[in-house]
């Protein structure tokens, strides 16, 4: 037992001391360092300015989300998914909701699936904008973050118009959307699609051929394709090395098999290629959103009408006795999916986000596992940082694109 009333003893380890034979220095970067995102702490062993060993220490934001998932009913857990990766909350909602729908064997209506794709792609752009701004800020280009956060506001305005929240959206529900699509929302999204390609050109003008940016990113943090697969990397970290794996193409969920888009691939696997891949992904997301807006039906149901698993629509709850009873049961007792286990993966902005749910037939998940992409991607940091310069570590942390809420869960 730890006595919390006593002060913590300060231990000076042998590694801290520099002797005649040992010239290594152990340096703690974080957890409060401004250029390690969130509360990441990296324990670096330095020989001069070269990194000899690197040990990321995580867990400062661990809230036990998986344990909480085992004590909440299925529909109650959706807000918790917002809090894992909070810069792309709709994508997290989507992964969880799809997993539960797969477990129950239901499917959202076509119109809801199109709007889910639009919201997920907007979330991808918003996440990439946060990444680009902070990554450039870490490396030293301050002004890019002013541009990216300006444009991210437009996406947050769209989220706010749709569901009233800007960051932790909680917008998707099991079976579709229970909110109506505001009539002015499609035009807002179209306006954004018309505006945003110009904004991407602005970022590229600032960075792509900037000699300082090239010097800081080209040839830094090279990951070979076979190493990237061996480290279980996904997302832009894997595609920057030239491995063609995108869940949207490999195992299409929602209606991605109807959409025409391309998967950008890098060639060298360095920080610069991953930057190019993510910038191109934003352009492809705009293509996807435009096609979705063209194909989405303007009228039709947004919620599946499934007697057991889906909350009944508000109008019939107020007018019919059966739906009022169903609504009562759904809220008070929750619904009970069949016994079994499912794994559902989606292409999150950071990689493959997987939800693995084991159901024992009760209204509460028996086991809820979140395979968060950046937790798995972050373990390639020691490989990338081996032999790199101290200043490059900041670029390497940025290129993995971590959000500590998702890493620590």
């Amino acid at each position, binding site marked *: 037992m730890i006595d*919390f009333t006593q002060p913590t003893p300060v231990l000076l380890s042998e590694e801290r001391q520099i002797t005649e034979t040992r010239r290594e220095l152990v340096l703690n970067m974080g957890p409060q360092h401004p250029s390690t995102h969130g509360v990441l702490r990296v324990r670096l062993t330095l020989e001069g300015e070269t990194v000899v060993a690197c040990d990321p220490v995580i867990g400062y934001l661990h809230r036990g989300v998986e344990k909480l998932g085992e004590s909440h009913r299925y529909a109650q857990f959706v807000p918790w998914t917002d809090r894992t990766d909070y810069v792309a909350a709709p994508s997290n909602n989507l992964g969880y909701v799809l997993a539960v729908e*797969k*477990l129950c064997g239901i499917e959202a209506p076509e119109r809801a699936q199109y709007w889910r794709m639009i919201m997920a792609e907007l979330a991808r752009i918003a996440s990439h904008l946060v990444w680009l701004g902070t990554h450039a800020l870490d490396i030293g280009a301050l002004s890019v973050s002013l541009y990216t956060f300006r444009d991210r506001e437009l996406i947050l305005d769209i989220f706010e118009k749709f569901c009233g929240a800007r960051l932790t959206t909680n917008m998707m529900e099991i079976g579709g959307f229970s909110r109506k699509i505001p009539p002015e929302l499609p035009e807002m999204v179209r306006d954004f699609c018309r505006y945003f390609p110009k904004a991407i050109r602005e970022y590229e003008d600032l960075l792509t051929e900037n000699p300082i940016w090239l010097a800081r990113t080209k040839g830094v943090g090279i990951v070979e394709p076979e190493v990237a697969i061996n480290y*279980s990397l*996904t997302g832009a970290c894997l595609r920057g090395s030239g491995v063609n794996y995108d869940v949207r193409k490999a*195992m299409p969920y929602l209606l991605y098999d109807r959409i025409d888009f391309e998967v950008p691939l890098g060639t060298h696997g360095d920080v610069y290629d991953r930057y190019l891949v993510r910038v191109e992904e934003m352009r492809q997301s705009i293509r996807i959103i435009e096609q979705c807006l*063209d194909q989405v039906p303007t009228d039709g149901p947004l919620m599946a009408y499934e007697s057991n698993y889906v909350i009944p629509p508000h109008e019939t709850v107020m007018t019919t006795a059966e739906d009022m009873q169903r609504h009562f049961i759904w809220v008070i007792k929750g619904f009970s999916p069949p016994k079994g286990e*499912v794994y559902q993966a989606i292409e999150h902005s950071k990689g493959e986000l997987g939800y693995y749910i084991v159901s024992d037939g009760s209204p509460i998940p*028996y*086991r809820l596992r979140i395979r968060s992409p950046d937790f798995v991607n972050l373990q390639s940091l020691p490989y990338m940082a081996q032999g790199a310069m101290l200043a490059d570590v900041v670029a390497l942390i940025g290129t993995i694109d971590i959000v500590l809420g998702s890493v620590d869960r």
Partner: protein
Amino acid sequence: MSDEQQQAPVPALRPREPWQTGYWGPTNPDEHPAVIAVRARFPEAFEEAVNFRDEMTIRVKREALREVVAFLRDHPELRYNHLTDLTAVDMLNLRDEPRFDVVVQLYSIPRRQRLRVKCGVNDGETVPSLVPLFAGANWLERECYDMFGIVFEGHPDLRRILLPDDWDEGHPLRKDYPLRGYRDYVQPGFERPAPRVRGSLPRPRP
């Protein structure tokens, strides 16, 4: 938006089952190539193959987990070369023996197919580590040890990852671990505030 794009015909909805959103191979275990290959190569270690919602799960004995995963990775026709996830499930409330399931999600990038490999393990037994096969298993196994207390034999650096190094309260994702932990936490320097009684605040005078 140009006129051509607006008038583009919408492709027809291809028929599919509602939950068929990923590809896991044939739904019949007797037709699944990975199940056939593993059953033929490891007749003693193979236990069962289960299909639920088109997802194929192979259950093997824990001693053979590393050999089975290596076989699936190196087989020229299977090539499950991407370790997507490694986690565990505490089966305390569902069955007697064995207590945990270690769940490995594999994916084949060239064949675009998933597979799930499971093995049962009791408290106190060890599972062969997959780090010699996949470097990506390192943190996943550390998390598994941190949350469940499952020891992976052959892991180079098995220590806690999400919880502090000096955490002495056990492993929180076990089913017998209470949701709020074992200990009554008191913040140092602060006394526990008195519980607020509803309506006890004085009303402001008009």
